[in-house]
């Protein structure tokens, strides 16, 4: 008796992500009137999340890093330890929950990313929405 509107085949694809990409940059001065930015390479002893047991990287040399944000919270503080110094980056974001489908299950959408506090010299939030594949969300300068 009758038919209902047909649903398309379920595709468990999403371009939402819960990982933030951070690029390390430095400013190079070429003369008195010009300067440009280039990738900075840092040697990390450890990259971890504050007040958790989560350690993301150990003994690594990086120009950029992709790190998971805490999906149970609206803030994550990331700790960057080198042999000489420690830097922290406190990020705040908005989480929206969504059920993709009964077969694919739920996901989180993270957007409105902003930096609340940082011990780096400066930083720029380029992309406040976390996407898959990841694009640069934050550039930090030391």
């Amino acid at each position, binding site marked *: *008796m*009758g*038919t*209902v*509107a047909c*649903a*398309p085949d379920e595709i468990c694809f999403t371009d939402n992500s*819960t990982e933030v990409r951070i690029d390390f940059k430095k400013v190079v001065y070429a003369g008195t009137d010009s300067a440009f930015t280039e990738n900075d390479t840092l040697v990390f002893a450890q990259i971890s*999340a504050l007040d*958790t*047991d*989560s350690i*993301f990287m150990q003994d690594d040399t990086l120009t950029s890093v992709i790190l*998971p944000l*805490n*999906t*149970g919270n609206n803030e994550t503080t990331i700790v960057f330890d080198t042999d000489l110094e420690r830097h922290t980056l406190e990020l705040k974001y*908005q*989480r*929206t*929950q*969504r*059920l993709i489908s*009964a077969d694919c*299950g*739920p996901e*989180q*959408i993270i957007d409105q990313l902003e930096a609340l506090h940082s011990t780096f010299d400066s930083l720029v939030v380029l992309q406040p929405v976390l996407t898959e594949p990841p694009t640069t969300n934050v550039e930090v300068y030391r």
Partner: protein
Amino acid sequence: MAQVQVEDTARVRPPKPPKVKKELKEFIPTGVKFGVDLNSFSRNLWDENKKFQEYQVDIDFRHYLLNFEYGNSEVEELGSDFSYQNEGSYFRVGPEINFLYKPEKLHAVFAGFRYASTIFDDQLDYNTVDAYGNTSISSSNQDAKAQWAEMVTGTKINLWKGLFIGFTIRYKFLKSIRSGELEPYWIPGFGQNRQDDNDQFGFSYYLWWRFGFRKREKTTPIIGPQ
């Protein structure tokens, strides 16, 4: 010289058809139909996680019909590590034109328009495991709202006395949603809220009973000078 009589020929023009006057009283409603959507009720039989019911009332104004639809739904989706519940009600209102209108017949083949609105609650609970450990997440909307428009077409066939049966095909578009931290999975009256598809088709299969309270009047021709 003989004169030739030329008969006058009068060209007789056929009479013009009488002008048909649509009196204002012909637009006064002659009856009202109350119906149920059988498609909604039949889905309740084979999908235990969803409950739907929908009712319709229409009033005729000569070859125009005014429709009111009301429904409510309960939807539940369960997975191995999540649960989603949605409960709400909706209404639709809009006019139709009956292309099959005849005063002595009550059948209709129609096209029309609807404005639709819904208010609903929903909740999503799930567990996630990531670099920070096991996390239980619960998110909900209270009194979330959505509205949309529909273009409709269908039939209403008089089977016997006041009994009617028919269907409506809907094209739903211009959807807008107001919700909180949970993006709704289901919108009562509209269907699944797909991120990549804002428009949807729908189908309803109705059974009505018509209560007539006035006989339909045939249009009154005017006979007079043309």
